[in-house]
């Protein structure tokens, strides 16, 4: 069973410039690991500026913009995989970033809690079909009421709304005989 939502494009490992980071989620408590998502996002943002050198004002502005976008999206995706990784599955989480001619594609993967799977799939479906402005305001209002303070849905809406990113998802079993479902979130950022 593999299910794709949105325009999910499989990553190309052989021909594309890419960088993939894997984290083993069980080796450190979440509090200590939290710091690694910021560190990793900063590193990724800085790393990819190598491919966008600044030699005049327009290219410098482009570099600043790309760096800021990678930083935000990578940080948000890493926070999400850390928060939502289904620990009993004992699987690593990952973030890969691929550079194509006209876009970056991020791929964030984590095992998902079977109890939250349906609800998450419904949310994904809403993101792809409903009016974004309406969803955005609705989510902000929901967050005001929600004491738990989980902002991950707002984070995805911000990628769509503020960064003009395109999102897609793939749900698949962790392996052939496994009951565990792994979700890969793809974020495409046009250059």
């Amino acid at each position, binding site marked *: 069973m593999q299910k794709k939502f949105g325009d999910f494009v499989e990553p190309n490992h052989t021909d594309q410039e890419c960088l993939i980071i894997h984290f083993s989620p069980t080796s450190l408590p979440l509090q200590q690991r939290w710091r690694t998502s*910021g560190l990793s996002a900063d590193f990724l943002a800085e790393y990819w500026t190598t491919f966008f050198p600044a030699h005049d004002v327009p290219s410098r502005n482009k570099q600043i*913009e790309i760096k800021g976008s990678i930083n935000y999206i990578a940080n948000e995706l890493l*926070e999400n995989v850390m928060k939502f990784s289904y620990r009993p599955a004992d699987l690593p989480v990952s973030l890969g970033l691929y550079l194509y001619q006209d876009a970056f594609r991020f791929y964030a993967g984590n095992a998902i809690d079977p109890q939250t799977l349906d609800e998450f799939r419904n949310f994904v479906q809403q993101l792809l079909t409903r009016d974004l402005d309406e969803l955005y305001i609705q989510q*902000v209002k929901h967050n005001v009421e929600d*004491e738990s*303070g989980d*902002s*991950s849905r707002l984070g995805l809406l*911000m990628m769509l709304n503020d960064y003009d990113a395109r999102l897609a998802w793939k749900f698949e079993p962790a392996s052939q005989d496994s009951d565990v479902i792994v979700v890969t979130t793809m974020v495409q950022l046009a250059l």
Partner: protein
Amino acid sequence: MQVRGEGYSVAYDPATATVTFQGTLRLRGAAEYAPIVQLLDEVVAAAPETITLNLAALRFLNSAGINVLFKFVIKVREQGDSQVLVRASSQVPWQGKSLKNLQRLMPALRLELE
């Protein structure tokens, strides 16, 4: 009033009713943002004529942090005593992209992007 942590500070100057954010904010959810939320709640309760948020030196803000700003703006709007001015920087990419959403919640909010 001030909240400091690794790589960030949030400080309120009552003389100018200005809350200044500096550094990078990537705290994990409501519990970690609670001290900043508390500072902002105290500012709202003080009800100055205009509350200024100076964000120009805030290089990074995660979605949990944007959430804090949204909640703050909604509180100010509902209390009805204060206007809000947000000072931001066009040189910090996230500010140009995301702060205008605050005006969706409070149309009278002034956003100055320098």
